[in-house]
């Protein structure tokens, strides 16, 4: 998973309808970069049959020590 560059962020915020300056795009890249790096080992590895609601299934499972 690659963290977005300031140039890519500029384009993404344009598409989102909230364009930012080059300086702000650079600042955003620095702010969210660590999240992309931290999640890199997970991104692109999840199995096909996994939906977000699987969280509720795990949460509801009776687990005891």
């Amino acid at each position, binding site marked *: 998973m690659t963290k977005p560059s300031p140039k890519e*962020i500029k384009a993404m915020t344009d598409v989102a309808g909230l364009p930012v300056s080059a300086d702000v795009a650079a*600042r955003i890249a*620095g702010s*969210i970069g660590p999240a*992309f790096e*931290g*999640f890199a080992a997970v991104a692109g590895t999840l199995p096909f049959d996994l939906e977000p609601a699987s969280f509720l299934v795990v949460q509801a499972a009776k687990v005891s*020590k």
Partner: protein
Amino acid sequence: MSTEPALLSLTEVARAIAQKRFSSREVTLACLNRVAQWQPRLNAFMAIETDEALAAADAADAALAKGNSNGALHGVPLAHKDMYYEAGKIVTCGSHIRRDFVATTTSTALQRLKDAGTIRLGSLQMAEFAYGPTGHNTHYGPVHNPWAVDRVTGGSSSGSGAAVAARLTFAALGSDTGGSIRMPAHFCGVTGLKTTVGRISRAGAMPQSLDTVGPLARTALDCALLLGLMAGADADDPTAVAGPLPDYMAATRESIKGLKIGVPTAFYVDDLDPEVERILDDTITVLKREGAEIVQVELPDQRQLTAACQLVLAVEAAAFHKRWMIERPQDYGPQVLMRLQNGLAIPGVSYLEAMRWRGPALAAYLAAVAGVDAVIAPVAPVAAPTIAESDVGNSPDAEAVIQRLTRFTRPINYLGLPALAIPSGFTKSGLPVGMQLIGRSFDEAMLLRIGAAFQRATDFHARVPKPA
């Protein structure tokens, strides 16, 4: 037990009113007197409703005189984070944008406390839209820590932490999306319960995926009382889970002899301030003395959880605020607007991957802690920093500062687990330090049991800051 009603715990004052040892008016006046004394120093209240509170107290006393009690908290005055909708009241959410917003409904959590007999003292300060962990607020000024007024309270439930610590209210609702109950509990020396996602309805409380409603109070017992009153299914929030509730109050009376408490081998014990490290060791010693067995636990990579949490929080915040970001960007504080913009640059695929991974990540965590009843860890690596040094505004490194401060709380939000922050000691300079007990999904009872046992063996929760 104190003869000054404002210094009683929630459970003590509720009993005192029920037994007519104090009237609701006496208790409410005692709180209002402390508010008048402390508010200029703390800035903890958003609104103080003296006349309405006293009128409600008189009504509560009149009802009780006729033998009518509204419930377990009859006549107890409380104030809450100013994001809980109450019909007819201004609810600012700590923002300029909602400075004049009048709620037309009442949040379920608040309504359940009202149904139990509470009366309203006013509303409490908070970070703008609950989006900040320090207690700074551009529009209404920072909330000050009662233990050292040049220090932050933590956020986003900043007023809740300060007001409970200074004994201005017996308890206060907070909310915790990335640490917003546990951080102020830690920095202000009070007990704070972050509940499991789904344990308490979020209706009327600015809900997003990782949000949880919970109390800040003086003791684990007080938190147990409040949780029992608020928890359970709600037609207005389908994510609130149905089913029988444990007897949380009974859990607090149980011994912890034979329980196993895990200490992480990494992450939560890395790069701690030496005083926080000492207090963690001291806390473990007390828990051992009370009969718990302490074992080491190797947790899955918590940095991945923190990263996933940031992806989810940032995107949801940007999506919720997008309309105002377009129409009223000038009405946000600089740091909040800056952080909202972060979410615009995270692709939808990354957000959805982070949401899809929650199930496997929770399963892996639960497997890792299968041999223990709870995990203990610091809430934060440091005690309260100064207001000046943590006022990073919208500087380029602001997000990094915020992420460092909340690195021990965010993984728990991502997993939706419950955690109880308990006052665990003081630094040499007199600042409180809290530890968090982290439990399994919906096992708040275990955390309250351990927290109450710790509080029977220590007095950190009973210490009261004095006005300078």
